[in-house]
């Protein structure tokens, strides 16, 4: 385990060295994600100047939800972005075989091989939104609430990673897994806003099937003292289950890949 941690650190340092060389690209990448988020937030701001609340959620509460999911998303964006590229960059070119010839876990290698600097932009935006909104809302940071913040963001991040892992495994069969991953990933956009604005079907989708709700809505509801019940704490379990499913699928995919060749 420590070996893998040390190795990851080394991979990360090397990657950062390269990124620092391309400093302009680094900044531009982070800036572009900030601008994208900024556009959506600007729209929310404009709208909420005109109406006091969105389905019972005021401006800062909406920002909190948006900020939480952006934070979770940024974890995936920074550390697991290479999952998107499995098919196009590694399987199609045969580069994945190199992972199999090295004495380390190929999934680890895939993840460690690329820290994505664009995710830093998302992290900054998410953090800024959470800070701004929680100050404006005057949240009383009791230990459970602090725990919920950390747990919520982390388990949200792992839910993102797990769902991406589950979908990217399709690359072993169809090579270009990006459309499949997008099909699931884009649903997180629903969770950028309070889930209560959607019909029941979408609520169920985002809670039990593609559970992005645990990255934003449920932690936010808890932090805002809305009577949400224990479901608020389900996040880590949901993440764990999804990660388990993802890893098993990965192993199945690997087995298929080594059975049929590239």
């Amino acid at each position, binding site marked *: 385990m420590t070996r893998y941690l040390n190795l990851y650190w080394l991979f990360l340092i090397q990657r950062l060295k390269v990124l620092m060389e391309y400093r*302009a*690209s680094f900044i*531009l*990448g982070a*800036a*572009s*994600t900030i*601008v*994208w988020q*900024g*556009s*959506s937030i*600007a*729209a929310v701001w*404009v*709208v909420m*100047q*005109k*109406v006091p609340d*969105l*389905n019972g959620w005021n401006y800062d509460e909406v920002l909190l939800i948006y900020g939480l999911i952006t934070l979770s998303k940024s974890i995936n964006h920074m550390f697991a972005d290479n999952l998107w590229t499995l098919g196009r960059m590694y399987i199609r070119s045969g580069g994945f075989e190199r992972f199999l010839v090295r004495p380390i876990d190929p999934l680890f290698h895939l993840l460690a091989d690329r820290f994505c600097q664009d995710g830093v932009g998302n992290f900054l935006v998410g953090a800024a939104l959470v800070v701004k909104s929680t100050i404006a809302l005057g949240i009383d940071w009791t230990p459970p609430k602090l725990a919920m913040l950390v747990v919520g963001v982390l388990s949200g991040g792992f839910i993102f990673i797990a769902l991406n892992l589950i979908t990217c495994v399709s690359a072993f069969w*169809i090579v*270009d897994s990006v*459309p*499949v991953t*997008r*099909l699931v990933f*884009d*649903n997180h*956009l*629903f969770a*950028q*806003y*309070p889930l209560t*604005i*959607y*019909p029941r079907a*979408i609520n169920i989708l985002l809670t039990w099937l593609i559970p992005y709700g645990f990255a934003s809505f449920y932690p936010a509801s808890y932090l805002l003292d809305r009577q949400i019940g224990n479901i608020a704490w389900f996040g880590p379990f949901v993440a764990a289950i999804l990660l388990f499913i993802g890893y098993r699928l990965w192993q199945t995919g690997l087995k298929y890949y080594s059975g049929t060749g590239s």
Partner: protein
Amino acid sequence: MIRNAKRDLSVYAAFFAMIPKLFMAYQLWFWIGLVLSVISMAILVFFWRAVYADTASISGLALDKTLQYILLAFIFSPLAGNDLVWEFGSNLREGMMIHHLLRPINFQGMNYAQNLGRLVTELMLQIPVVIVAVVLFGLRFPTDIATWLGFIVSALLGLTVMFFFYWFLACLTFYTTEVWGLGVLIQGMSFFLSGTLVPIIMMPAWLQTIVLSVPFAQAVGVPVSLLTGIIPLSEAPRVWLTQILWIIGMWILSTLFFKVAVRKITVQGG
């Protein structure tokens, strides 16, 4: 005669048989792209419905008018973009430059025609999205021919504005290798500034001034406002004039910058 009929029939049958073949030949991307569009539209619709939950009208717009605007802006959003930044920044550039310097054809004109063709194709590909919007989200189109004409003229003018604007921007790629990031950055801004996310009328006055001082809105927000009647048809000539002024301005800027950039290449080398 029977033989002729038989032959015709077999030709028709062959064409007909192609349809399911095309169906299955369509890449995964196409169908998934459609689902992704549905997700985006659903979020927009539910968001705005929630916004209007306790209000009948915002900035003079009722819910159905706003929804009509938002959905149409979504459908026509390709008008605000193009590939010039990619093309100029890519390896194709050298080949392109040689064409420009050697051929008698107007380089910009040729690119404009290409861009127009590409846009038409993209809009055609939006047809399934339109169908979904009509069926699932109750989108209704205006039936008045005059409104449509007003829209089409405005859309053509608007995309021309964007063409020259992006041409201007694309010249930046002669000076930097950061093409991809630049393109994404502009796209991100265009998202809001084109009036796709929020009707321009709803913005506070100072923001409206800012949005209208950059060209993005001319390609989507303004034409769609005409189409939905948010800007009444009587205002159409004024709108077109503004767009034409934008075109002139952007054309001047883009041509100048292009000349400078080309000189840089021919003097210093790409």
